[in-house]
């Protein structure tokens, strides 16, 4: 027991590293969720549109990213894009890759929500003289959004956890802070338990929120 406490103390003295890691993970998560949701809605609306070409192009784009590992995508953005002349620091590269993959998954969720709204809704709105955009904004999207909130929040949670891949390009996020500490602390199990708890504390409010919204 005293050994355990000692080890815990050993980890505790590295708290600046852990805090830095939590900060980076939080920042990446917030950027990914906000940008991913905005871009995801735009792509999702395009995906559900009656324009088959537009829908196909968006579908193909999102399939490419949904069908390949996030780690590979992060590598491509960080290591391959510079060869094409796009030089990004590791944080920007990570944020970009994470926002993009989130947008891809969210677009399919949004598109399925839009398709689930009965055709009669848009017909009623059109019959009253609403423009396409008004039909979408005032009638279809509010109903679609209500249906997809649980899936959306589930996607947010996945994003927070997936953000750990950025440790592979040297970003000091929560996962990487664990790697650093474990090099000077003997109990790796304990270190990564702390890391895991950190992720859980970030995700739990989201899970809780989702459960509450599902009830209403």
């Amino acid at each position: 027991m005293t050994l355990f406490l000692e080890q815990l103390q050993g980890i505790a003295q590295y708290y600046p590293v852990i805090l830095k890691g939590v900060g980076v993970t939080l920042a990446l998560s917030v950027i990914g969720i906000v940008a991913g949701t905005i871009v995801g809605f735009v792509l999702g609306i395009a995906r559900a549109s009656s324009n088959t070409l537009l829908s196909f192009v968006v579908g193909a784009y999102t399939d490419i990213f949904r069908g390949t590992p996030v780690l590979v995508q992060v590598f491509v953005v960080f290591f391959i894009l510079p060869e094409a002349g796009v030089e990004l620091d590791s944080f920007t590269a990570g944020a970009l890759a994470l926002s993009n993959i989130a947008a891809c998954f969210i677009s399919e969720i949004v598109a399925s929500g839009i398709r689930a709204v009965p055709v009669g809704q848009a017909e009623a709105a059109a019959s009253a003289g609403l423009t396409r955009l008004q039909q979408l904004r005032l009638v279809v999207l509010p109903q679609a959004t209500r249906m997809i909130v649980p899936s959306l929040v589930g996607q947010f949670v996945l994003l927070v956890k997936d953000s750990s891949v950025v440790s592979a390009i040297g970003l000091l996020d929560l996962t990487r802070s664990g790697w650093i500490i474990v090099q000077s602390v003997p109990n790796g199990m304990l270190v990564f338990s702390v890391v895991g708890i950190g992720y859980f504390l970030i995700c739990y409010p989201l899970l809780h929120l989702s459960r509450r919204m599902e009830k209403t």
Partner: protein
Amino acid sequence: MIKFNELNKWYGAHHVLQNINLEVAKGEVVVVCGPSGSGKSTLIRCVNGLEKFQSGTLIVDGLSVADEANLRQLRMELGFVFQQFNLYPHKTALENVTLAPIHVRKLPRKEAINRGREILEKVGLGDKFDAYPQQLSGGQQQRVAIARSLCMQPKVMLFDEPTSALDPEMINEVLDVMVSLAKDGMTMIVVTHEMGFARKVADRVVFIDKGVIVEVAEPEAFFTAPKNERTREFLGKILQH
């Protein structure tokens, strides 16, 4: 007010509307009936552009429906009532009614709300302003739907089987609203099997079968002395009880 001229529509190879010629004058009430699959819903959905047609012309209030650029302008003047009501489930009765006046007619919110309340009261729903559609019975929902169209102050009201999805005891409350509209001089096209309604307020009854207008007559003549064999057969089927 509304003029079909040699209108044709196909779904693939299926010829759903064939050489439709029909004119509806201002203030006139026309009831359209026919067996299911006869094209009567398609016909009324053409009037506000929910269905496209391939040939012929359809002029409403001086504007061609085939011209996409006219559609919004036209639809502001055409109320449309659906069989399935299609109320916006995320909005209250009053919000359903005021949405288009606010966003399409650009009426000040206050004025729209006053007008909406007035019209909801007129259809007997003065105590349901803040109710959501799922809290209302079918008959009440359909009356909200009618009020929603009326709030745009349309020149024409189109009804696509407005009572077909209702339980029998709720049909009359909806028909009563429609009868009073007709008496107020509203121009109406009503697709329905409610022959009592047709007899009471229709100026003319149109019988359509397999995409063809078979017979057009005043209600008295239509019900007592139908000229066409198919009309007689149809009336025999729906009036025998």
